[in-house]
């Protein structure tokens, strides 16, 4: 699973969460709780992008055969 796919999944969960929150907030407790849950799942998935991004970076470095990176910009 790529980090972008995870971000896409997280974004879809956020959108679903917003819809459930807006529709449910006046008086439908189950619905807004589901909305809150959906946003929570989205955030957990987003945290998962750290792992996938690290893996993607390692794979990228292996492909280019270079360690490190950096732009050598002055500070």
């Amino acid at each position, binding site marked *: 699973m790529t980090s972008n796919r995870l*971000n896409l999944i997280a*974004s879809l969960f956020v959108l679903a*969460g917003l819809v459930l929150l807006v529709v449910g*907030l006046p008086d439908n407790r189950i619905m807004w709780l589901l*909305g809150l849950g959906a*946003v929570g799942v*989205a*955030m957990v998935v*987003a945290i998962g992008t750290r792992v996938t991004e690290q893996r993607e970076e390692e794979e990228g470095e292996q492909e280019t055969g270079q360690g490190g990176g950096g732009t050598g910009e002055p500070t």
Partner: protein
Amino acid sequence: MQTNLPVTVGYWIAAFLPILILLVLLVWRRWPTSAAAPVALFVAVGVALWLFRTPLDTLAVATGKGIWDAIFVLYVIWPSLLLFKVAEDAGAFEAIQAGLRRLMPDRLLVVLAFGWVLTSFIQGIAGFGTPLAVTVPLLIGLGVKPLYAVLLPIIGAAWGNAFGSLGTTWFATQSVVDLQNPEATLLYAAILLWIPNLLAGITISWLYGRWWGLRRAAPAIAVISLLHGGIQLVLLQVVPALATFIATAAAFAAIFVLNRWSFYRQEDEDEPNRLFVRGAWIGKEGEGEAEAADAEPGAEGRVQEQETEQRMPLLIAFAPYAILAVLAVVALLIPPITNVLEQVEVGLPFPETQTGYDVQQESVDAYAAFTPLTHPGTLLLISALAGYVLFRSRNLYDADETPATIGRDAAAQALPATTAITALLIISKVMDHSGEITVLALGIAAVAPDLVYLAASNFIGILGALITSSNTASNVLFAPLQATAAEAEGLPVSLAIAAQTAGGATGNALAPGDALLGMTVAGIPERLGELIGRALPWALITGILVSAGTLIIYFVTGGGG
């Protein structure tokens, strides 16, 4: 502000924890924002639930509002990336680079023109990240290193946040605070905002070439800052909505006059190159030691440039951005048109909320209603579409470059920012609705003696912008508290609000939302922590000088009333 919030050291530290964790993960641990922001969000939620007696329904409302705020920002990011890709794939930035090299040979002046003057000009019309969305790709196209392409305009436009976007922040501030002497507030704010403005010019020149940069840029800095600060100072008393716009427009015109001055036509062999990537730059030829040794800088490079300019003249290359500027002026500055376009308004309803410590938020029928037809995102989208049609009609795309591939490239860049921005703006709302932000501000007010509080009031503004990524939100959040605290301490409310406004503007240089937008457009969102780490010293020095300026105004005016 009637609450029962416990303003203790323990609660203050707990309230600060989400921000601390976010900064540690971003700046020190170098986590991507899309992962760091959700962690900080879970901390903010945990603190809200267990310490600030925040019910789940309040959290639900805060979450919904945060997502809605994020949609507002994301509607700038996605179209701006689309516009960037439309121009990039057609080769517009190479053409802009070649054209500007001929028209404006002094690259320090070019950096000031884009990183300070143009970005402030756009800020004067439309904020919400639009200045970064436009200037970051242009600076990168000119050969500026991506990190600096974001750092320069985010510092350069900070001062313009206070009265930019046609005075949005000022009018929002007036709606939450009953100012007895608004003229005095405007005057003090204009004086204090001159500090971040002047420091922006100085810092950009310093980053360009240390002492060499400062010496070379001194006349330009003097002229531009005089126009920015001076015109704003005078016009704020007359037309607060247009003061920044007119001031920045005057400075924009002045850049072209400065460009014709022989001082900015001199070659200097000692000119340093700190901001430009090697081999891709404007101004002088043959830059980049290793590359320059192999390259034949003169004739060959010039032929290439002529070919680029023949393929795409500067005016055509710049057309999507010119269309954007025209659209913004027409949609936002011509009242009859603006009034018609603003008939369409979208906002979401949210019920009232209350916490166990009596932190209340009223119900709203249309929360943060925005007008899609005058929203910068729509203007960017139209510019992107117009740019695509124009470039396609001139056969400037390769056969494999279709709207679908351009859209896919833009989406790949925008997706990480989408989750990150959403998490950041939910944090802001959770901290607001739970009372965490109020405890932070009340804590500073409680321990600081009166003059120390006055000096610190701009830092509360900076803190607000850091949390909410918005000068307007910072003022809406903290201006009532600043007014109450100033009255209680016998300090001039007008001066405290002016300091808050200047702080909110300065803090925008650290605003994670705006910064992430810029870094996403630059294609380096994972380096957000590095950017904030570089902008932090500027914001702190500016904050200290604004504090000093606030105290000087207090003493010079005999109490600032």
